[in-house]
């Protein structure tokens, strides 16, 4: 590592959650009431909860390195990027950056829907830190990249979402930073857009610029990055140039934690006086887009005679329900009164159904018909469906679609050639 572009030393960020975790906004009225309460009682109840979003992060990145940062949601990746781009201040440690920094945390921030495409290019450019003269010089290129020449003088609220994203990305893509910090901007837009973004990213990386690239798209990380930093709970858990090894480890390692859960003690297991869950598991552990798998749920029925029905929901990362399935056609026990005891329901899911990504499982226990919910548990399991890298060529982007069926195609000649 000859020349250093980014160096961090013991970087940390502490967030105080406050007593009310749900609403971080306080009102002046509340603050006054609290102060008054404090004067009155002075019991100092409930020290505010705090959490280290980033903790003891130290690394050095050389000029021209392309580094992927991976980790689950809440691992501290975005916070790290926000510290490095000066949006938020660290609580501890320090970071040193040598070179002009461009940071891209989102697509389209600062765009105003009522302004035209042309006006937004200037506004957005200025927000990104470009000089007016720079924007003018690159204006033609930006517009050409975005392919919106005809709509330059139309308000962007009338743009299709694709045009909007292309224009937003185009401005940022024509920034000229020496160090580029990118956060998950490739997770939006359609396949064509993502391809274009990734192409541009590859180009930037190829030009010898330093790139720090936060992503959940493991295929892209594998394809673009020469080094990968893995974060967990705010700390760095891996930092290696062996990208494939870290990524595979990450994909399989993390799964065990969430794709199988067990509560041996019926008294403390999640549930209530009707139902308690003993076990929930996805089998097998490693799933790719074409593996069939099964969801197993073991539960105690605690009230004899209940006609327990089980309803399973699978949601993708965007929170979209991919499917819902119930025990309604289960042959043995459905609709029959269950005695008290431990039951086990298994739902078999065929391969070539789910697209690659993370999924959460939500389970609802209900009585007989649709009479009433006995118990429900959100985010019971979290599992990953991995992509298969074969036959993808240069295309690293996410395969579009909520599902990924393996469909039969036929092509036949309808008419004979003209002759």
């Amino acid at each position: 590592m000859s020349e250093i572009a980014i160096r961090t030393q013991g970087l940390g960020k502490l967030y105080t959650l406050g007593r009310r975790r749900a609403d971080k906004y306080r009102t002046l009225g509340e603050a006054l009431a609290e102060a008054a309460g404090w004067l009155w009682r002075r019991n100092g109840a409930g020290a505010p909860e705090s959490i280290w979003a980033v903790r003891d992060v130290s690394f050095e990145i050389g000029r021209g390195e392309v580094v992927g940062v991976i980790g689950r949601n809440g691992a501290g990746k975005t916070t790290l990027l926000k510290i490095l781009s000066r949006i938020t201040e660290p609580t501890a440690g320090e970071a040193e950056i040598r070179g002009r920094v461009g940071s891209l945390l989102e697509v389209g921030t600062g765009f105003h829907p009522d302004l035209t495409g042309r006006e937004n290019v200037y506004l957005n450019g200025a927000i990104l830190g470009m000089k007016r003269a720079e924007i003018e010089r690159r204006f033609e290129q930006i517009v050409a990249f975005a392919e919106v020449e005809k709509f330059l003088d139309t308000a962007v609220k009338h743009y299709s979402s694709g045009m909007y994203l292309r224009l937003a990305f185009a401005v940022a893509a024509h920034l000229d930073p020496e160090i580029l910090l990118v956060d998950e901007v490739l997770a939006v837009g359609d396949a064509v857009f993502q391809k274009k973004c990734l192409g541009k990213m590859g180009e930037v990386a190829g030009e010898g610029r330093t790139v720090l690239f936060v992503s959940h798209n493991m295929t892209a990380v594998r394809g673009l990055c020469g080094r990968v930093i893995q974060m967990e709970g705010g700390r760095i858990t891996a930092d290696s140039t062996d990208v494939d090894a870290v990524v595979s480890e990450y994909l399989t390692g993390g799964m065990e934690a969430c794709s199988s859960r067990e509560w041996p003690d019926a008294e403390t297991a999640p549930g209530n006086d009707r139902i308690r869950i003993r076990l929930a598991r996805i089998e097998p552990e490693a799933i790719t887009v074409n593996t069939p798998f099964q969801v197993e749920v073991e539960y105690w029925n605690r009230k004899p005679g209940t006609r327990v029905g089980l309803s399973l929901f699978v949601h993708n990362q965007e929170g979209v329900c991919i499917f819902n399935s119930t025990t309604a056609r289960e042959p043995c026990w459905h609709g029959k009164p269950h005695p008290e005891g431990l039951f086990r329901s298994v739902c078999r899911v065929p391969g070539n159904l789910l697209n690659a990504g993370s999924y959460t499982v939500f389970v609802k226990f209900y009585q007989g018909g649709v009479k009433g919910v006995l118990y429900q548990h959100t985010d019971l399991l979290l599992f990953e469906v991995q992509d298969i890298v074969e036959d993808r060529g240069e295309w690293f982007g996410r395969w579009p679609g909520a599902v990924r069926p393996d469909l039969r195609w036929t092509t036949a000649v309808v008419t004979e050639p003209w002759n």
Partner: protein
Amino acid sequence: MTSSTLPPSRLLIRPSRGWASLQLRDIWLYRELLYFLIWRDVKVRYKQTVLGAAWALLQPLATMLVFTLFFGRLARVPSDGIPYPLFSFTALVPWMFFANALGQSTNSLVGSANLLRKVYFPRLVIPVAAALGGLVDLAVSSTILAGMLAAYRVEWTARVAWVAPLVALALVVSLGAGLWLSALSVQYRDVRYVAPFLTQFWMFATPVVYSSSRLREPWRTVYGLNPMAGVVEGFRWALLGTGVAPGPMVAVSAAAAALLLATGAYYFRRMEKTFADLV
């Protein structure tokens, strides 16, 4: 796409301690952003509304009519021998500018939450741009004032030159208060609802509908502690020949305004580092 480009080639990021410096140089580096933000606000305001620029005319005119009816006609508030419509409108022009600039800058940070969370730039740019945007409306309402002065055959004197520094003073006051309120509103969301009340009370504490000429010295000078009192009376003096010459009262107002701006700016800078986390 959110991004920011920092000019310095070597940057050290570490936790700040105690009172941060104002870093006015940063604002200068980002002057083009300041310009574009003002430009955006003005453009959007006039683009969206059906009435467009008429809105900037209608607001002070309607207020003037109401005041003339209630305070001038019904309550017979003395107006230093000036016809009440002219008397109140001369005060309303700087007051409305102040109130709008204050309102805009108070809401500016919370309104730009997305920018704060995704891009780096000196945060001061946002309330400053919001307050400066009010100058456009001021220009519009000033034209009516000029029309009214002509209609009432008021003669122009060299004192008119004082209008510019008085507008600057009003800007300083609105910015000073705006920095306080915008920074507070990031932390305490109800500030947004308190601010309009505050502005309303402030108006009645300012000689907009009445004249401060009934106060005897030194109380009139003390009244200047409300910096808007100095601005409004200064305006009347510059345009109508009544009110107070920019003497002790305006000097007190200027000092109060400077203090407000300085404390506001320091408070803002101190809270700035928490904005992205709280907003």
